[in-house]
């Protein structure tokens, strides 16, 4: 019974997070401006991180947790660099 509940919840979470990643990709492709694409990339990073966490819960492995953490750190640095570029035209002043 509990396995069925968890199975259903994990499947729902995985499907909706995958759809969320798709929505973020739509925003990256459609734009219309550079800042819209950057916000899409940031959202995609967060969604991918959550998807890794949920997949880790499903497969009972801590490998996904570490991957999620790397994605989180990379996403932050990437978005800040891109936003800084939009703000000033160069990343490091």
């Amino acid at each position: 019974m509990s396995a069925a509940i968890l199975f259903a919840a994990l499947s729902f979470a995985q499907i909706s997070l995958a759809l969320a990643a798709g929505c973020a990709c739509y925003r990256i492709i459609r734009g219309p401006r550079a800042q819209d694409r950057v916000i899409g990339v940031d959202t995609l990073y967060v969604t991918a991180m959550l998807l890794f966490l949920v997949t880790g819960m499903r497969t009972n492995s801590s490998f996904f947790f570490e991957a999620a953490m790397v994605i989180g750190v990379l996403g932050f640095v990437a978005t800040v660099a891109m936003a800084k570029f939009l703000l000033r035209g160069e990343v490091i002043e």
Partner: protein
Amino acid sequence: MSHLETVPLWLAIPVGLLLVLGSGLTLLGTIGLVQLKSFYDRLHAPTLGTGWGMAAIVLASILLFSWLEGRPSLHEAVIAVFVMITTPVTMMMLGRAALHRDRKENAPELPEIARRTLGEDTP
């Protein structure tokens, strides 16, 4: 899925609810990202996923792994704290970048109040 069968019902229900809540909020946030019309509106949408969406999924993960490993498993909390601190930074930088670009181009959708740089010609 053998590890899921060891979880008792009283834990499975809150974990399931938290998972559905968290992923649902994240999905709603990205739907907003697609659907909303102006950039400044879209700036609000992803915070649904990085706020309580992320918190709910991390909480579910902590509960499940604490049971499965038989000891408090709190390392997911590090991710939660990290995302909580970094999201405002990225959102703020993006907001400022968009404002800067819109001002430079005299974008028509920018209202009068946001048009001039703060503190430059305030009375």
